[in-house]
């Protein structure tokens, strides 16, 4: 029995809707005077972060603590890992301490999959972002945000995103957020379009369940949600695009472009934003931009995932792909 969340592609439509519905109930805990549930009392979860990511780490930590889990934070920086200890040894050390779940962020694509399938440990593995591969809880919180905004908090319960038109803009090539979102949004029935300069789209993208466009302006009027992906300035030096200015002009979202979007359409960003690069301050601070909401929703989604994977004697999420491979 698999007890892991490694890739958004592993989730069935029903799994994903269950997670979103559960997160909706978890969100209501945040409105209570005591924002805590006893559900994971006695479970130990380690946040194993080989890459710096304060926002993802504290989001998981908040979710774990609200569910009363015992939390251990392990940052690879300054630890034995930086002295050459392998992932395997680190994982086995944690396992020996009696850890029930490992939330792992790693710079190498596939590290969480390897951790979950190599037999090194028995604990459940939750992928908090691996290289340029996957970031499934990010995709789930994005889908959650879309469902709330585009369908409604209560009206959305039990619903997927069938027919919603979602546009992802920016550095798809280096983005685990894009990969996770394409997989999950497709599973949920949305129509996904990727918009990027051709240099920032991976070879092989033609097999992905989405459309690809190089033209932002023609895509915007047909979008219910537009997700801007972070573009790191150093990509410029590797000749992915000529200059920051040219990138912003062709693929950045400013007020004028936002006005071309349908009135109900929202602007999303996984953060951290590079203002002035992929998004202007005007857009980032507008009511249509859901960045802050996404952060809040992240805690609810992670509570839902933790509850559904660890709350019982076996996980409630079926994991189509990993099960097949067994």
């Amino acid at each position, binding site marked *: 029995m698999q007890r892991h969340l490694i890739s958004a592609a592993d989730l069935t439509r029903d799994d994903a809707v269950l997670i979103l519905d559960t997160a909706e109930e978890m969100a209501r805990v945040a409105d209570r005077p*005591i924002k805590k549930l006893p559900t994971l009392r006695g479970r130990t979860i380690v946040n194993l972060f080989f890459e710096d990511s304060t926002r993802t780490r504290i989001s998981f930590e908040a979710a774990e603590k609200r569910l009363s889990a015992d939390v251990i934070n392990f940052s690879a920086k300054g630890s034995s890992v930086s002295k050459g200890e392998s992932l395997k040894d680190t994982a086995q050390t944690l396992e020996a301490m009696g850890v029930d779940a490992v939330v792992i962020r790693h710079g190498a694509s596939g590290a969480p999959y390897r951790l979950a399938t190599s037999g090194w440990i028995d604990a459940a593995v939750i992928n908090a972002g691996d290289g340029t591969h996957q970031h499934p809880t990010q995709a789930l919180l994005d889908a959650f945000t879309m469902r709330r905004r585009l369908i409604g908090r209560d009206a959305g319960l039990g619903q997927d995103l069938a027919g919603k038109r979602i546009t992802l803009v920016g550095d798809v090539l280096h983005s685990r957020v894009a990969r996770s979102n394409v997989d999950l949004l497709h599973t949920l029935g949305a129509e996904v379009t990727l918009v990027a300069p051709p240099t920032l789209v991976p070879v092989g993208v033609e097999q992905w369940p989405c459309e690809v466009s190089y033209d932002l302006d023609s895509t915007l009027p047909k979008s219910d949600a537009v997700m801007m992906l972070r573009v790191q300035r150093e990509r410029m030096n590797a000749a992915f695009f000529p200059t920051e200015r040219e990138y912003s002009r062709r693929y950045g979202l400013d007020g004028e472009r936002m006005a071309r979007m349908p009135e109900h359409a929202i602007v999303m960003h996984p953060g951290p934003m590079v203002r002035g690069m992929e998004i202007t301050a005007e857009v980032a601070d507008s009511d249509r931009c859901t960045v802050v909401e996404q952060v809040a929703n992240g805690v609810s989604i992670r509570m839902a995932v933790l509850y559904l994977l660890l709350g019982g004697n076996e996980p409630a999420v079926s994991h189509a792909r990993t099960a097949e491979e067994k």
Partner: protein
Amino acid sequence: MDTHADAQASEAPQAPQAPDAPASDARPVLEAPDIARVLTRIAHEIVERAKGADDVVLLGIPTRGVFLAQRLAAKLEQITDRPVPVGSLDITMYRDDLRMHPPRALARTEIPGDGIDGRLVVLVDDVLFSGRTIRAALDALNDIGRPRAVQLAVLVDRGHRELPIRADYVGKNLPTSLRETVKVQLAEEDGRDTVLLGAKPAAQ
């Protein structure tokens, strides 16, 4: 995904999972008119014991307790001519048997606008069995506020308590054996009102 909506099955942690469908030889012990009558009686008892019920908040325990709470609220309103706040309290994440089953889908917790602080909370459930659901509900209430007092109303008390918990308002006391199942069906969820007493499948 297993939603385990069947409250009565999950009331008895030691017992193996009872099937959602009642055994085919189940016989009705309460029919729709009986259910309506006992709810009316309970409503009157609440008004009497709460001296007018002006600070009562009804919280139903999902799934069927919520419908019973709503019906009780309507009857209380008829009696007192005032709306009675009614909500729901999902106890899933407070259960003491979480580790014995796959995680259950969560139901809605809906606390009426003015909250529960200083009020008389009447918990409403369909079947009182081991008492563990009510213990979980009391824990859940603790995280939500501080009521003046908490009372319990159930449609059926089938006995076999495992905790020192009793109901303040009981629709029907139904002495049962552990080999029997009690299944409450309500129109809102099941299309009809009835309480069925059946036998567990022999395989168990």
